[in-house]
């Protein structure tokens, strides 16, 4: 497979054409707007948790995104992966995705953790596109951190 085909996996193109969980929904506890200043990609993202305790579960992640196939597909995959997970588990998935994207193509992705997210392994070889793949993920972490900080006070995990 060429590097190009490795980046534009079928899964990515599918998510791009038919993004999952797209659109902004109520209710939500935090909304963030992130941009990639180098290219202008934008995402507005909302997070809704079911409770304020330590075992809070992510009820919904909704978003409105403008950007390339990589950034659009990435936020779509994120919603599939994280909705329904406990915040604690979701942070581990976030960590794993971050490690994959920053690994310059040397990190072997764990399919059990990342599921469709492993399709982004090929993107890691294109440094200019890593930020595209991370845009939605950074927005999600920012929003989630805001909710947790507001409701439970900052924890070490979130800091």
């Amino acid at each position, binding site marked *: 497979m*060429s*590097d*190009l085909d490795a*980046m*534009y996996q079928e899964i990515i*193109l599918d998510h791009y054409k038919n993004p999952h969980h797209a659109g902004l929904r109520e209710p939500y506890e935090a909304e963030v707007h992130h941009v990639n200043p*180098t*290219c*202008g*990609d*934008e995402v507005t993202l909302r997070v809704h948790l079911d409770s304020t305790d330590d075992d809070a579960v992510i009820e919904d992640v909704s978003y409105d995104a*403008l*950007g*390339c*196939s*990589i950034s*659009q597909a990435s936020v779509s995959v994120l919603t599939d992966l994280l909705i329904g997970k406990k915040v604690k588990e979701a942070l581990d998935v976030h960590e794993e995705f971050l490690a994959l994207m920053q690994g310059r193509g040397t990190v072997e992705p764990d399919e059990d953790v990342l599921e469709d997210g492993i399709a982004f392994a090929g993107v890691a070889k*294109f440094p200019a*596109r890593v930020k*595209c793949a991370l845009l939605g993920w950074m927005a999600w972490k920012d929003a989630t951190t805001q909710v947790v900080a507001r409701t439970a006070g900052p924890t070490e995990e979130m800091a």
Partner: protein
Amino acid sequence: MPRNLPGLLDGLELIRQDFPILGRTMADGHPLVYLDSANTSQKPQVVIDTMVDHLERHNANVARAVHQLGGEATEAYEAGREKVAAFIGAQRDEVVFTKNASEALNLVANTLAWAEGDLRVGPGDEVLITEMEHHSNIVPWQLLTERTGATLRWFGLTDDGRLDLSNIDELVNERTKVVSLTWVSNMLGTINPVREIADRAHAAGALVVVDASQAVPQMPVDVVASGADLLAFTGHKVVGPTGIGVLWGCRDVLEKLPPFLGGGEMIRTVTMERSTYADVPSKFEAGTPPIVEAVGLGAAVDYLGHVGMENVRRHEEAITGYLLDGLSSVKGLSILGPKDPHDRGGAVSFELDQVHPHDVAQLLDSRGVAVRAGHHCTKPAHQRYGVQASVRASSYLYTTPEEIDALVEGLEYTKKYFRVD
């Protein structure tokens, strides 16, 4: 051999051989098709050799060393200034070397806040720019007006990518202190009627600043005839090196502006209490300047002078016409900006239906075709046309019709790859 398109440079193949990078092979064996010259131009061998020779044989600091090398370096640096001056029809002392065009524009915007007398921008004054400016000709004026209590105003744009001058009588008025505009748009390609606007601005008593970053590379520029009082461009877009820009100003204005950066070489004398300043252009060149860059820039404008800027302009028109025709043949593609090659520069921005510009650029890159994708530092102009980002192909004196063909083929391949009909 390039197809015979009227207006192409004679000996285009020989010109291409002057640029070693054009012989590069990219990933998967694709020859380089460089269509990003509005971003930065490639460098001819003579510029590279001149810079290497300077570093190998003549390197020293300028204007402060008595030794032989110091003399040679100073002479080479000042020769760079003379060549640039000759290239744009200026006097040598009116050419200030800066880091880039952004620094040149910031120099003007900052010193206008500090100026004494009629140049000073203050509360109640208006600074007039346009909606098609590069961020480097927007942000410095926002900073100036925010800091001084002046008001920032701008010309809007017409649907076909030109300046909307319908309200010029209202926009250029007795409060207008500065009019700053681009000569050639880096996004839309539009060539603006700089002289006409400058005359109106002067009649109202305003100072005229021109961002010529895309104009000086592409067409003959005579700074005096342009109507500008101050004009900025950058070295790396005129086949010269990065790290050097040019601020030209008519002597009278440069003399009235106070210093920008303080430091070595910009002074006449320094005591612990106060300093007096050198004459222009040294007054604006604090610290060790970009010496080898000035030497390289001198070689670059010499090179362009030998090719002839009239010929470069004709070539750009021919290639841009061919590019506009090629792009128009791609279904689902829409061009931003004027469609007539005779009144526009060689940067053409476009959108491809259903494929994001980054993805277009990535697919083209996989075939060795280098273009720019994004907002090209013109977010307001993109917003004006309801576009988040675009793809930009930009040609130069070394661009061939075959390269345009490779771009158009690459766009058809991109559509197929993303399953767009």
